[in-house]
């Protein structure tokens, strides 16, 4: 991380790393569809598959940041479309709480997103990744005292 100041001057060498927890039924399938339809997006995201977005313990998100993630996404089914009836409602509630908590901890709100991506929304998955990468490129790395 010593070369960060250089990296900031030498613009493009900052490669934000995003961990995306995707539910098996909608958002993982959405990411699959992006592939099937050959929608191109930046290679910054690493997907961890869970059965339901409601499985994602807020502690996972915090842990990902402490391990060096520049951004974290929890992606689930659209409201009322959850494969497990209402797991995504729990995700939404936890997401609100997490955003607040992270901001207090000095992690900018753009670094954490809860997204609803359907299995038919390959394009949306790509847009979310593109949007987050460009947000993170603007922000730069997480301030060291926070991490």
């Amino acid at each position, binding site marked *: 991380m010593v070369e960060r100041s250089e990296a900031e001057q030498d613009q493009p060498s900052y490669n934000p*790393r995003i*961990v995306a*927890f995707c539910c*098996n039924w909608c958002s*993982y*399938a959405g*990411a*699959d*569809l*992006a*592939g*099937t339809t*050959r*929608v*191109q*997006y930046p*290679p910054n995201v*690493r*997907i*961890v*598959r*869970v*059965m*339901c977005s*409601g*499985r*994602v*313990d*807020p*502690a*996972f998100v915090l*842990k*990902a940041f402490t*391990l*060096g*993630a520049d951004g974290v996404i929890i992606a689930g089914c659209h409201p009322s479309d959850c*494969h*497990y*009836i*209402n*797991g995504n409602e*729990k995700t939404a509630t*936890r997401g609100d709480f997490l955003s607040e908590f992270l901001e207090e901890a000095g992690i900018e709100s753009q670094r954490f997103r809860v997204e609803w991506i359907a299995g038919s929304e390959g394009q949306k998955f*790509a847009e979310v990744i593109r949007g987050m990468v460009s947000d993170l490129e603007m922000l730069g790395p997480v301030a060291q005292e926070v991490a």
Partner: protein
Amino acid sequence: MPENTSTEKEKPRIGVFICHCGSNIGGFVDVKAVTEYASTLPDVAYATDNLYTCAEDGLNNIKETIKEHNLDRIIVASCTPRTHAPLFQRTCEAAGVNKYMFTFVNLREHCSWVHMKEKEKATQKAKDLVRMGVARARFLEPQEETRVDVTPTALVVGGGVSGMTAALSLANMGFPVHLVEKDKELGGFVRSLHALMMTTKSANETIRPLIDKVNAHKNITQHLSSHVASVEGFIGNYDVSIGGDGAEPKEVKVGTIIVATGAVPLVPDGLFGYKEHPGIITSSEFEELCNKKELPRLKSVAFIQCAGARGQKVSYCSRICCNVAIKSAIHIAENRDNILGVTEEKAAEAGEAVEEPAAEKKAEEEGSERRRRRRGRGRQAEDGAGEEGAAPSSGVEVTVFNRDVMAYGVENELEFNKAREKRVKFVRYGPDNLPKVSVKDGKLEVGYFHETLKMERTMPVDMVILSTPLVAQPDAATLSQLLKVPLGQDGFFQEAHVKLRPVDFATDGVYVCGACRGPADIAESVSQAAGAASRASIPLANGFVQAEALTSVVDETKCTGCGTCVEVCPYSALRKNDEGISEVIAAACKGCGCCGATCPEGAITMTHYTDQQLLAEAKAALEEV
């Protein structure tokens, strides 16, 4: 380095098979480089690449390699688990490796196909993804799918048409059925009706054979004047307590439960002058008057559709009321079965001929359907022009004030035509211009806005029949809590999936049919009941249910009994045991893992998606290489 969790067991031996998928992956990712990298990762005993891993030689290669290299967990890095996981899992099982020791890495949909113009970065990402897979695989545990025995008996709640049909279907399949009806006799809502659509038989005559069959069936135990007092257990093993009027509750054991509690008509208090004049009644009260032969002589009748529905007292369309009104309108216009209460003697006294409509009916029957329809169409145009013109042939003027007529389906549409042939008038009103019912000098009149003439009109009538929607049973919420199945926003029971699982609840073992899941007519209720019985019979016939292997597991030593997981579980798969500690009902758990993410004590482990496995994956994703 991640902590080694292979415990005292042998060190994991992971085999990694990286697929070129022709050029789908190989064309955009340096597969050889990824394979080489994979072989350097911890616990990887073997790594290779295949042109097509899913082809027969690819699968054989996996099987042979498992034996040759004594592999105990397998990673295939190729396409998506959503399409190909079962195939590779079967291959693993065929070679003696538990299918839960398999991990999928998605190199095609999530890498090569979305980074087609940056091979170097795509190759780096592919290495990261394989590293994540290996990190996860190291912590995998074999899982067993367990079977739970099923009590081959069913419970049907509700003794109306739906409940009786469902009970009879199951009984005919040979399963004992407990049929619980809160009333003192079977028949439900239909028993209070007089006449039905599309049949000349009365409502009671129509359902009598069904009641007789239920009464006669040796497999059906009836519990009349009874209700479900408590329900414990899960699919295959329910302990149900049936309470009766003052009687000792009866305990029964059942494997599956069908909810068929029907619906009730809305009481339109405060709407359209209801109760302000004896001539303002609901359509169900109209049926009762017909049954009791107390309908007065009428000259002019107005139906008001959607009374209380679609944005008034309830938001939805009750579906069946248009057809009911069309049926009743035809019967009034025909004075069928002399429902207007004008007995022949009375008619003779009054010097009026009531045979006239009957004669016309006869003539009507002789005419061909085709002629009738053509004539209907002609008269339809006439209706629009001379709305208050020609009176119907029975001498009763029938007007149906409606927002739009929902005579869905061919048969109902034909009835709608028939009503127009009988000179029943259909007058539209807008949601902002509801008809106004008023009483002037003891006489009823309906004020309405004529949409074609764009002016206010009034129509003197003898009777106003309010077509009120069916609403949920007042005790639906109690039953929904007992069975832990949901109600929709309108208070009706909510099925698991509006299109694909219309008679299932999301909770396994409980099914739904008839008007308790939304307004339905008899034919629809019967179809649903047959469907629900068929669904409910599957576990009964199998004699067992296959529980998900991926369930949550409670660590009793960590659980404090706070009950958060019980609240969070969408499937009621968690309950507190006698010691107040949470326990998982494996047969009911679907493996979403919401409880695991919520437990404040970290006492819940979600099998196959453990904290350890998921965090290992996330950590591997973020490792600097």
